[in-house]
């Protein structure tokens, strides 16, 4: 279980998170919602280790990981699909998928076939440079890349951005499937409300660096939540 406790985060003098607390449980999808610039990505950065927090505490599976560098968190099973995709532009699709192999025991260094079932286009383009892919293809690659390392916590920052509707549906299905396996915790940031609301077990709504609403998804009515993230 991931526990974020009273986390503050600054960019220089600017403050992006002011005491955010959050829990993400195994076998659940926790959905983070909020308007542009309220700090969703910042929270993801804090959790994955892309940015050090100025105050507060982050625990994963009972261990304090607040000060661990990103690669050590990855080693503990945290995989990330960052906003903006962050594909390695000059590595081939295959190589992009293999960048996480260092975390796997030698025998398991193989891209699982399910991934190509889910994203058939990647199988066709294994030798194309990541940077040459279309935006949506890159997004698919980013998700696939995160799944390759077999994470226990999957962090997704707007994973449906730029993806065609049919594949969004597939992604929804796979997230649901991963959740249903029960051993994976999923933290999902999403603007696509219907998509998020349908998947979410828990919901947290951010506004200006604070959690303004949180709880079990089933406790909320969609329109209430929507109103919190309206302009």
């Amino acid at each position: 279980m991931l526990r974020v406790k009273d986390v503050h985060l600054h960019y220089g003098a600017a403050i992006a998170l002011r005491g955010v607390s959050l829990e993400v449980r195994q076998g659940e999808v926790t959905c983070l919602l909020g308007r542009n610039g309220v700090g969703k990505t910042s929270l993801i950065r804090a959790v994955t280790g892309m940015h050090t927090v100025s105050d507060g505490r982050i625990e994963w599976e009972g261990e304090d990981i607040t000060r661990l560098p990103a690669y050590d968190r990855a080693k503990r099973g945290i995989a990330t699909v960052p906003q903006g995709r962050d594909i390695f532009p000059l590595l081939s699709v295959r190589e992009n998928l293999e960048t996480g192999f260092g975390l796997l025991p030698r025998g398991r260094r193989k891209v699982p076939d399910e991934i190509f079932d889910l994203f058939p286009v990647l199988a066709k383009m294994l030798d194309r440079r990541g940077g040459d892919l279309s935006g949506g293809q890159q997004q698919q690659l980013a998700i696939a890349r995160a799944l390759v390392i077999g994470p226990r916590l999957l962090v997704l920052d707007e994973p449906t951005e730029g993806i065609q509707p049919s594949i969004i549906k597939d992604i929804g299905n796979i997230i649901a499937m991963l959740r249903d396996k029960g051993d994976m915790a999923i933290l999902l940031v999403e603007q696509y409300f219907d998509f998020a609301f349908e998947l979410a077990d828990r919901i947290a709504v951010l506004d200006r660096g604070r959690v303004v609403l949180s709880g079990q998804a089933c406790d909320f009515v969609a329109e209430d939540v929507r109103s919190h993230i309206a302009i």
Partner: protein
Amino acid sequence: MNAFSGQSVRSFKSVVWTAGLVLGLAVVLAVASLLPENSPFHVSAFAVSLAGKYLAYAMLALSVDLVWGFAGILTLGHAAFFGLGGYAMGMYLMREIGARGAYGDASLPDFMVFLSWKRLPWYWWGTDHFAWAMLLVLVVPALLAGIFGWLAFRSRVSGVYLSIITQALTYALMLAFFQNGFGFGGNNGLTDFKDILGADLHRPATRAVLLVVTGGALAAGLLASRFIVGSRFGNLLVAVRDSENRTRFLGYRPDQVKLLVWVFSAMLAAIGGALYVIQVGIINPGEFAPANSIEAVIWVAVGGRGTLSGAVLGAILVNFGKTLFTAWLPEFWLYGLGLLFIGTTLFLPSGLMGLWRPVRAAPPEEITPEVSAPEGEHS
């Protein structure tokens, strides 16, 4: 990154200050050098010539900062323009010697007599006229920069590719000027100058005037540069520097934008070179050595890239340090200089100017070093 960002354009008051300071300092030193030698305020001719050299170097640094700090062109060959300006000035000074050379030849400089040349090569014609020589100081480097820049920017040569061809350019010039057959005195270059516009170069008054002229030129250069990078054009430069392609889709021609500063910068460097040669008394192909251009970049980095005043400050301080170290610690000064460069990068990422100009980027300790850096252009 410590580099100049658009917003700081408006906080450029320091440039005006620096210009005034530089000019004032030059005037004070010049006047003090003319005081009688026993006066407590007397400044030696040596100090005046040193100051003149520093200010000339500062012009080179300024010109580098303009293209590197603002247009993002890391030039590793700017000394080429400095040297060309210097040679043009040297040609005039050489001709001024007239029949006072070792061989007493009124029309041919010594080294030509020495190599049994019979006639002045065509490119030396008219160099006995000050005005023509000054025109050459400006036009030759501008022309070279123009052609070079036009071709390079138009075909979108950028980044290290541009850096390396600027280096190749100055290296090629160095080798060419080394050749005796090239008509510029080979390795020895041009030296042993006597006077300028009839004024004896060895007289304190002449030196004082030259120092003031250099100070004035530098101040003018600073103000002109400020004008160029100030306001909207400065923003455009930054835009071109950070995302050249994006400016194209807005309808700008980044090649022309860059060419404009590039040529201006070359001319600035050339003026610096011309003033340098008068006061240092020699110009030779060593000025084209790639290491010189790299050093000029380093002055800028030490002073603070993207801050015009910083370039001037960096050039003066590093060279002053060099003068001191080479005299005080002749066998260890390289340690001092090397460590200065290393220390500056580590502890003063914004250069000396960063000391009093607030750094705009997030302070490094906020971020784990390993994961903080925004990725550079993947090259």
